């Protein structure tokens, strides 16, 4: 049924200029294959049992299959499940499944690099930045404040009871404040930004993507990364830094309150130990962590939002993934940063 399929109209050979000269509006190649391609080998059967279309054995398709056949032993029919059999002719093969996580990681880094570069590209989307800053701040400030008081208290109580066991009550203040500032505060901020701000950013970008708004933007020569992602990432970074300051203060106050009221600590000892153990770099590392975490939360949210898989459901999945991925990354990066800091910056009085 396929061999006598009449060929499409073709210009006579002399009328065909050299490829690339642009003088020939007719289809080349595609139509030509029809004649050049070998007839389907008899008895070879349908090489794609997973495909129901009988046309798979059409000469159009057997032609591109040849390179695949060449890769197998000569005289061997391609195995029935030959995965590349009906992909494009030539060297192209779909990338291996196993590399998918690596590829995703690579794309995440590529996006991070693009965002970092585009931060300095004019025109800066100031309005979008302010809107996003306001939005992220408004959804994170209250939860952050509410979380930081009990969190500061828990740390103060735990550290307080531990120092009591060790007989070092006088150091409770310094120890708990350091724990709050260096660890608790940046993490609380980042988790809230990822959970409240990042998920909204991811959902917003994802629905724009499936509505083809982002494609439309690219077609109009406007980069969605520069226009939408950069302001969002900058907003999450700035909110993270500012919020980190707030959470540190609130958490420290909470710790102070609980230590002094509930554990009968003395205000003087609390403050004295603080100045004995803490130093300015502790505050810096806290803010640096917050900055990096904010960047991560923004980038991961944007990355998942820009690449939702298939339809509206994909957006929901993407939001979910973005929060989980951010959490995983945060704790890992926090570990690295903490280890580096403790190695590089000598502790006070050590």
């Amino acid at each position, binding site marked *: 049924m396929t061999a006598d399929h009449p060929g499409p109209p073709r210009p006579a050979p002399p*009328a*065909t200029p050299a490829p690339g000269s642009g*003088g020939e*509006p007719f289809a080349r190649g595609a139509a030509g294959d029809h004649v050049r391609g070998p007839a389907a080998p008899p008895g070879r059967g349908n090489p794609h049992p997973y495909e129901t279309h009988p046309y798979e054995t059409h000469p*159009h398709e057997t032609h591109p299959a040849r390179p695949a056949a060449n890769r197998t032993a000569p005289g061997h029919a391609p195995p029935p499940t030959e995965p590349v059999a009906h992909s494009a002719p030539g060297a192209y093969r779909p990338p291996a499944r196993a590399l998918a996580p690596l590829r995703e990681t690579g794309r995440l880094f590529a996006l991070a690099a693009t965002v970092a570069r585009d931060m300095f590209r004019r025109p800066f989307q100031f309005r979008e930045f302010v809107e996003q800053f306001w939005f992220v701040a408004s959804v994170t400030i209250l939860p952050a404040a509410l979380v930081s008081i009990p969190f500061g208290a828990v740390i103060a109580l735990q550290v307080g009871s531990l120092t009591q066991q060790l007989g070092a009550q006088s150091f409770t203040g310094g120890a708990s404040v350091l724990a709050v500032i260096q660890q608790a505060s940046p993490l609380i901020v980042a988790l809230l930004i990822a959970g409240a701000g990042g998920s909204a950013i991811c959902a917003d970008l994802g629905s724009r993507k499936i509505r083809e708004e982002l494609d439309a933007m690219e077609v109009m*020569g406007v980069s969605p990364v520069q226009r939408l992602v950069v302001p969002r990432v900058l907003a999450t970074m700035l909110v993270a830094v500012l919020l980190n300051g707030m959470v540190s203060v609130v958490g420290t106050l909470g710790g102070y309150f609980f230590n002094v009221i509930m554990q009968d600590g003395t205000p003087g000892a609390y403050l004295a130990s603080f100045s004995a153990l803490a130093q300015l770099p502790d505050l810096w590392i806290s803010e640096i962590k917050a900055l990096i975490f904010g960047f991560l939360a923004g980038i991961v949210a944007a990355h998942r939002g820009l690449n939702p898989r298939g339809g509206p459901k994909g957006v929901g999945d993407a939001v979910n993934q973005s929060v989980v991925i951010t959490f995983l990354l945060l704790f890992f990066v926090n570990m690295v940063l903490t280890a580096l800091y403790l190695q590089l910056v000598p502790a006070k009085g050590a």
Partner: protein
Amino acid sequence: MGTEVVVEGLTKSFGKQNVWQDVSLTLPAGEVSVMLGPSGTGKTVFLKSIIGLLKPERGRVLIDGVDMVNSPERDIYETRKLFGLMFQDGALFGSMSLFDNIAFPLREHTRKKESEIRRIVMERMEMVGLVGAEGKLPGEISGGMRKRAGLARALVLDPQIILCDEPDSGLDPVRTAYLSQLLIDLNAQIDATMLIVTHNLDIAATVPDNMGMLFRRNLVTFGPREVLLTSDEPVVAQFLSGRREGPIGMSEEKDAATLAREQRTPAPYAPRTLAPQLEPSPGLPSRAAVPRRRERVLALLPGLPEPARAAILRSYAPAGPPAGTVGGPVGGPVGGPVNGAVGGAAS
């Protein structure tokens, strides 16, 4: 004048699924081309590949020397400013009013004053019949209006290449007829290269200078409209007559048994008559592409199949001798605009 688009050996797959392969064609500068194809044959993918949104794994798309597949992103972004793309669903920005949507490219790429922007936007909205809806959000209007707004946005920067993805879907027959006329008028006014992807037979019969068809992962043919419209290729004939008998089935391709059964009782296709191409509305300049196409097609003539040759000669009959002497307007019912610009053939 519009810009020529040269597509060479383009092949696109999603994972293991090959959409089409080895597609080569040239959209002659300033001419209107139509790409036909049953649903799901990758017409949208083709448009997006031309503009560089999707990256085919093989082949090139050359526009002014920039390869939209492999050139650096920076060049691709620059070249995209030559394009206007009308998306299948409009792809308007959901958070902006229609006015802001249509003004978006102007605000991004020009330093025009707000009053100037307003004038241009209102002019385009009037063109596509959207006056009065400028304050509405895309969520508040019908699908057909969204498409027309998408077209207006695509036109606002006077693009040299206009790509339309199924301009007719979601429009009633009357609006489709207006739209066909609008597309031809546009071509007369700005002489842009146009590619319209559709499966609407009225548009296919009356609008284009050139026509192609995608089917079964291949470009079946691409050439002057007469070639496709007179073709007796089963796929083309079936598609143009909109019948069930033929190689196209519900799920794109029929199985062998059905096809064999049909072939035993071949039903002849009714002879198709070649409808004349639309002319620009009165008062507009004549299309600059017409004489160019005429020159080009006449040069191609010896290589064309007999029915197409006859149809072309018939359509050009009143104008007399071939190439070079094309001064006046191309007479006759068929403004088979011809284009010499494409390539060596004409010179």
